[in-house]
């Protein structure tokens, strides 16, 4: 005989319930397929991004015989200076060049008088290079006609070394935004998906009445706590698999322009997921217990579903201006912290005290929810029939019992 009364008995039941939930989740096809897909997506996404960052962009440009003489050389030189690989091909005339652009065999063409031909809008990467090369070629022509020697022209046109200080490299900013967005998306999806598993799990046990058999053996705290722990562990296993795959791919591919601290951010993301899941699953579970049928589940948990979706929208807004005061505040408050804090951490440097404050508030909120949500659950979970109102469940006085 194991377990017994008091906390030990609660714990015994909780472990058993959690083990069942975990086993049922992990055994399901949906879980296995989604884990494989997510891991594959993480590996492929990072590998492709790393490959794109490593290889310079390639362009082919057609240059007609009538174009200014030094253009081809200038295009190649300026291109490699800008980190692009540009191949210059010769076109018979303007008509042939236009055809090549039209058919997409070349990105752009340079014709007589330095005319640059684009298919549609100019490419933001290639345009400055072509523009500079044409300018340079025409200015050389003018310098020669003014009687300047070739050496003088070269000295005149020698590039000016302008000292440039970049506080954040463009590549790093892009990478940071991407990491922040992926973090938000992963956290949002994981919390919404696994939170709704807790919701449907609670409602299913009520609607198929097994809850009464269960509660004659284990306390409600074991049942709800075990369900959250079991589903949470399944979610964590999946989250860890994706995070480990992402970290391993990052370590192997070592993409250039990866902001420092990206690898360290992944464990933090996992911890924020655990906190966020604990908080939201408790909300999903306790509000779900107000419903008796699957049809009522979404309505009962409506407020929390809306809250999670609202935080996602808030996170997208915060990405535009991560330094704003309101972002600082919401990154520390419990309902929003699990998503907004990792987002802020990815984009700006967050003072340590703010992280400590966010974690402390989050833990306090989780403790409070376990007490309040547990009470709601305990009062509502045996009620059958119409959906309970929050106030009725809180007082534990369902106006109309289904059975007497």
């Amino acid at each position, binding site marked *: *005989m*194991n*377990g*017994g*009364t*008091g906390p030990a*008995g609660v714990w*015994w*039941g909780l472990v*058993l*319930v959690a083990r*069942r939930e975990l086993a*049922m989740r992990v055994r399901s096809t949906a879980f296995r397929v989604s884990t494989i897909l997510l891991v594959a997506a993480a590996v492929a996404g990072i590998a492709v991004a790393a490959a794109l960052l490593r290889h310079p962009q390639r362009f082919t440009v057609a240059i007609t015989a009538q174009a200014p003489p030094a253009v081809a050389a200038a295009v190649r030189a300026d291109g490699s200076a800008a980190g692009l690989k540009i191949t210059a091909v010769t076109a018979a005339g303007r008509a042939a060049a236009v055809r090549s652009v039209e058919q997409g065999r070349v990105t752009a063409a340079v014709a007589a008088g330095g005319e640059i031909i684009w298919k549609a809008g100019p490419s933001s990467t290639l345009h400055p290079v072509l523009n500079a090369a044409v300018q340079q070629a025409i200015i050389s022509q003018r310098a020669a006609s003014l009687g300047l020697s070739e050496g003088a022209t070269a000295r005149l046109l020698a590039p000016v070394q302008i000292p440039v200080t970049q506080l954040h490299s463009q590549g790093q900013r892009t990478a940071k935004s991407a990491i922040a967005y992926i973090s938000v998306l992963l956290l949002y999806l994981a919390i919404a998906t696994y939170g709704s598993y807790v919701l449907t799990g609670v409602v299913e*046990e009520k609607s*198929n*009445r*097994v*809850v*009464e*058999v*269960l*509660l*004659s*053996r*284990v*306390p409600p705290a074991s049942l709800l706590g075990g369900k959250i722990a079991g589903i949470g562990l399944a979610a964590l296993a999946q989250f860890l698999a994706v995070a480990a795959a992402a970290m391993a791919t990052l370590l192997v591919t070592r993409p250039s322009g990866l902001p420092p601290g990206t690898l360290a951010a992944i464990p933090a993301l996992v911890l924020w997921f655990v906190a966020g899941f604990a908080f939201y699953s408790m909300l999903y579970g306790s509000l779900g217990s107000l419903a008796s049928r699957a049809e009522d589940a979404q309505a009962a948990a409506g407020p929390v579903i809306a809250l999670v979706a609202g935080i996602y929208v808030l996170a997208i807004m915060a990405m535009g201006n991560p330094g704003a005061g309101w972002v600082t505040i919401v990154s520390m408050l419990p309902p929003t912290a699990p998503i907004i804090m990792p987002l802020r951490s990815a984009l700006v440097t967050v003072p340590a005290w703010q992280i400590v404050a966010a974690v402390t508030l989050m833990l306090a909120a989780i403790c409070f929810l376990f007490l309040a949500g547990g009470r709601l659950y305990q009062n509502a979970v*045996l009620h*059958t029939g119409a959906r309970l109102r929050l106030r009725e469940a809180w007082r534990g*006085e*369902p*106006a*109309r*019992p289904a*059975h*007497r």
Partner: protein
Amino acid sequence: MITARILHRQAQNRMTGTAPRVHGLPMLEVSDVVKRYGDVLALDGCSLRVPAGHLVGLLGPNGAGKTTLMRTLFGLVRPDGGTVRWHGRPVDWCTWRRFGYMPEERGLYPGMRVAEQIAYFGRLSGLSSRDAAAAAGRWMDQLGLASRQDSRIDRLSHGNQQRVQLAVALVHDPDLLVLDEPFAGLDPVAVDALAGLMHELCEAGTTVLFSSHQLDLVEHLCEDVVILDKGRVVLAGRLSELRARAPRRRLEVTLAKDAGERWWERWSPALPGAAVVDGDARRVRLTVDRSVDLEKVMAEAKSTAEVVRFDFEPPSLSEIFRQAVRS
């Protein structure tokens, strides 16, 4: 509907004159339990005692409070007042572990396999995983589920689901088994099997409390009944004693030949509390007070014609039930 097996056992019990009980002291004691749902009083000072190893039928009209009372025994409903004791101690998680419950609203995990599900509930009741698996195997054998042990619950027939439900309630060999409407929806063969099993459990020392609306069945199955009405126990005790104690008796007189219309009216109005149920030229059935002078009735009847049959019996359970619930 009742099996020959049970009738045989009852006959045996009657012959020996004593029920095969080890303990006679009350094990389960419910005292003055009150439960209020808003303005509805579900239990209104409900008290009852169930002796160890007894098979007790809990009767009552719909809404009498039977399910609430059963839920109270398991702490599923927290009473507003009163106590529930087991072996003299208030019930808690330790005692609930030794109780088995089959609620009226049957419930199982539809996607779980039979053996796994029975063993899981055994684990929740404190069995080790080995003991739970062994107990699941034993109950599947006993209830004829062995060939379905790897089936998902939602692939089983209604009857087999009921058996799994019963196995779940029994897997940890509970000391107290509480069954809410266990016979509802069962076919006659399944009713017989369940009734036989309940008897066997009782004889092995399990205390069994069950609710039912099938009064004939309860009358044949149990020696003890508790009748609940409007949240109170209105009648409780040994069925034989309740019947003997009942103030009314059934009286039936059959004559050898026709004696004309209302032949009984010559003497019946003088009997204490007499009420005619029905009658014809040869036969009359009536209810009378227990204090009736049978010698006198017999003499009166004989003066009409030869009496071929004379029955004087205590009321049936359904008559007792109606009487108790009406008042």
